C-alpha cells in the first residue's frame, strides 16, 4: 500500500521521523507502559514472538513477561480476565490477532466490558483496550479477513477507533489506553508497513475528532482506516479531471464527529462514504444515514456508499480483489455524483 504522504497530514512541528504504523503502535504501547505501571499486554504470542505481525517485537524485553503475557488460544477467556483486571485497577491492552476472532469473545466484550459501568450505576469501570485487525487482500480467506468494527460501534458502552496513519494510530492508541472505557482499536493488517511522519515528542489525539486528510470543494469522500488511502488515490484521479475531492477521516467511528462530516457535506453537497466492512448494515450505513439526515437540505445528490462486497472474503486473488473498494471504484462513484459520467 502506498502512502500519498504529501496528502496525509502529519503533525505540525517539532522533531519528526517517518515511522511505520507498526512502529507507531509499538511506541504508543511502550510509552504508556513506562508512564503507567497498570498498563499490561495480554494475548496469543505477544511476548517473544511479538505477534505474527511483529507489531509488539521487543516489548517483552523491556517490560518482562509479567507485563507482556502470552496466553493460551482462549480469546473469550483472556478477554474475560482482562475485564476483571480492568475492573480492579489494572489497564490491560488485549491483542486479538485477527478481528475475525472477536467472534469468540463477544459476550465478554459486549455483555460484560461494555455494560459493567452502566449496570453498576457508574461504580465499576473497565479501562480496557482491545487491539485487533481488520482488512482483506492478504489472501487469508473468509475467516481471517473480516472488518467487523461496525458491530462494536452498535453497542453503547464501547468506543471504536479506526486509525489510518502512523500519526493517528499512535495518538489515538495512547488516548485509548488512558480512556476509562473499553475501546476496540482496529488496525488494518495491510497497513502495518505504511510509513508516515510522527513527532518524537509525546502527544495524544482526542477521540471523536475527524481529520480532513485532504481539503476539497466538489465532493466529500468520507473514509475509514486503510480506505483513507483508497479515497486519497481516488481524489488524485478526480483532480486530474478537475474534480476537487475532500477526504474526511472520522478516525473514531464512536464517538463520531458528526459535525465535521456534516460540515464537509454541506460544503460540497456530494458525499461518498467508504469503509472496508461489508456494505450491508455496516459502517457506511450509519455515516450515510447521518449525513443524509443532517445535511439533507444541502445535498445535491444522494449520499453514496462503497463498502466491501457483501460476500465472505474469498481466497483466490482474482476474486478477493473484487471485494475491496478501489480508488477507481470510488472515483467513478464520485464522478457520477458530480454528473460527470
Amino acid at each position, binding site marked *: 500500500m502506498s502512502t500519498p504522504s504529501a496528502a496525509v497530514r502529519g503533525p505540525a512541528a517539532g522533531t519528526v521521523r517517518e515511522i511505520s504504523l507498526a512502529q507507531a503502535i509499538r511506541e504508543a504501547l511502550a510509552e504508556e507502559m513506562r508512564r503507567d505501571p*497498570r498498563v*499490561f499486554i495480554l494475548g496469543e504470542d505477544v511476548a517473544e514472538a511479538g505477534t505474527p505481525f511483529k507489531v509488539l517485537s521487543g516489548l517483552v524485553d523491556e517490560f518482562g513477561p*509479567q507485563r507482556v*503475557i502470552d*496466553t*493460551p488460544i*482462549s480469546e*473469550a*477467556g*483472556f*478477554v*474475560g*480476565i*482482562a*475485564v*476483571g*483486571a*480492568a*475492573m*480492579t*485497577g*489494572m489497564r*490491560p491492552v488485549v491483542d486479538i490477532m485477527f478481528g475475525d476472532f472477536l467472534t469468540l469473545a463477544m*459476550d*465478554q466484550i459486549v*455483555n*460484560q466490558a461494555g455494560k*459493567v*459501568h*452502566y*449496570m*453498576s*450505576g*457508574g*461504580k*465499576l*469501570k473497565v*479501562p480496557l483496550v482491545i487491539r485487533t485487525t481488520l482488512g482483506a487482500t492478504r489472501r487469508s480467506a473468509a475467516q481471517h479477513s473480516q472488518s467487523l468494527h461496525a458491530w462494536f460501534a452498535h453497542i*453503547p*458502552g464501547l*468506543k471504536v477507533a479506526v486509525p489510518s496513519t502512523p500519526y493517528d494510530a499512535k495518538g489515538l492508541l495512547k488516548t485509548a489506553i488512558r480512556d*476509562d*472505557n473499553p475501546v476496540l482499536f482496529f488496525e488494518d493488517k495491510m497497513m502495518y508497513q505504511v510509513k508516515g511522519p510522527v513527532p518524537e515528542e509525546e502527544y495524544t489525539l482526542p477521540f471523536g475528532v475527524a481529520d480532513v486528510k485532504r481539503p476539497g470543494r466538489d465532493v466529500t469522500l468520507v473514509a475509514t482506516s486503510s480506505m483513507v488511502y483508497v479515497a486519497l488515490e481516488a481524489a488524485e484521479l478526480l483532480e486530474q479531471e478537475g474534480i476537487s475531492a475532500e477526504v474526511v477521516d472520522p478516525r473514531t467511528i464512536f464517538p463520531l464527529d458528526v459535525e465535521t462530516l456534516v460540515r464537509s457535506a454541506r460544503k460540497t453537497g456530494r458525499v461518498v462514504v467508504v469503509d472496508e466492512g461489508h456494505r450491508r448494515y455496516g459502517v457506511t450505513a450509519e455515516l450515510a444515514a447521518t449525513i443524509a439526515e443532517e445535511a439533507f437540505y444541502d445535498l445535491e445528490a444522494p449520499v453514496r456508499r462503497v463498502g466491501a462486497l457483501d460476500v465472505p472474503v474469498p481466497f483466490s486473488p482474482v476474486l478477493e480483489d473484487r471485494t475491496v473498494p478501489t480508488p477507481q471504484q470510488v472515483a467513478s462513484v464520485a464522478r457520477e455524483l458530480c454528473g460527470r459520467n
Partner: protein
Amino acid sequence: MHPPVAVNRAELPEEVQDVSAADWLRMYRRMATIRAFEEQVNELYLSRRMPGLAHLYIGQEAVAVGVCEALRPEDTITSTHRGHGHCLAKGARVDRMFCELLGKAEGYCRGKGGSMHIADPDSGNLGANAIVGGSAGIAAGAALSAKLRGTNQVSVCFFGEGALGQGLLYEVMNMASLWKLPVVYVCENNLYNEYTHYRETTAGDILARPRAFGIPAEEVDGQDVRQVLAAARRAVARARRGEGPSFLLCNTYRYFGHHVGDVDRSYYRSREEEEAWKAQRDPLRLLRDWMIAAGLAGPEDFEAAERAAREEVAQGVAYALQAPYPDPSEVTQHVYA
C-alpha cells in the same frame, strides 16, 4: 446420605476449631437474613410490587455465608443470577439491596442493574452476572490484578453447576492454573440447570474437570456451614500463599423455583425431594441443632437472631418501597466513565 451432625468441637474440621460461638451465631444470623430477605423478595413478586423476576437463594445460604466468612473485606467475589445471598454474605446492606430490586435510586446500581446485576465494590462484590458462567473470567482477572498489584487479595467466583456447560470456565481455569492465580471457584450444585437435572447436562465426574487443569478440587456439604467454611479456608489460604486456584463443589439445593414465577415444578422435580431437603438438610437448622447440642447457644439465641433478621428485612423493604426512583434523565448517565 450425609452423616449426622457433629456434636462437639473435636469433630469440627481443623480449620474451624478456633471459630467462637459468637462467630457461629453471627453466621447463623447472616443466613437468617438471607432467608428472610429472599422470602420478602418472593412476597414482593407475588404481590406484584417488584418489577421483573428474581432467583431465590433460599436453601443455599450456607455456601455464600461459609465462603465469605473465609474472606477479608478487600477480597473480591463475583456472583450469578441467583446472587442475593452472595451479596449479603459479602457485606451488602439489606435496604440498598431492596432499593436495587425495586429499581430505586438508592439501589447499589441506582436501579440500573436490578436483581441480576448487584455490584458493590465497597464490600468487594464485583457484580452478579446474568450470563451463566459469565464471570469466570472476571474473577480470574481480579485475581491476576491482585497478583500484579501485589495486594494479596483473593478472588472468589460463585457459579451454579449449570455454568459447567460453558467453555469459558475451562479456558479460564487453564490460565488460572498456569499462572497460579489466587482465585477460588465455588460451584454450587443445586441439582438443576433451570428445569433440567444436572445429570442430563453434565457428563463424567465434575471434580475431575478442575483437576484435569491441575486445580485441586474437593466436594463439600454445602448445607453445613462448618464444612463450607473449613473448605473455603483451605482454598483461600492456598490462594493467599500464592499456590494458585482451587475448586469447591458445594452440594446444595434451592427450595423454591428457578425464579419466583416457577411455581409448578412437578414436571421436573418431586415434592418429596423438596421436602426431604428442607426437613433433613436445612443449613440453618443444621447449624442450630449442632450449636444447641454442643452447648454453644440456646434456642433463645436463634430466635433472637431470626427476629433481628426479620426486623432488618422489614425495615429495609419498607425503606425501599418508599424510596424515590432515579430521575428519568439518569437513563443516559453512566454509559461511559
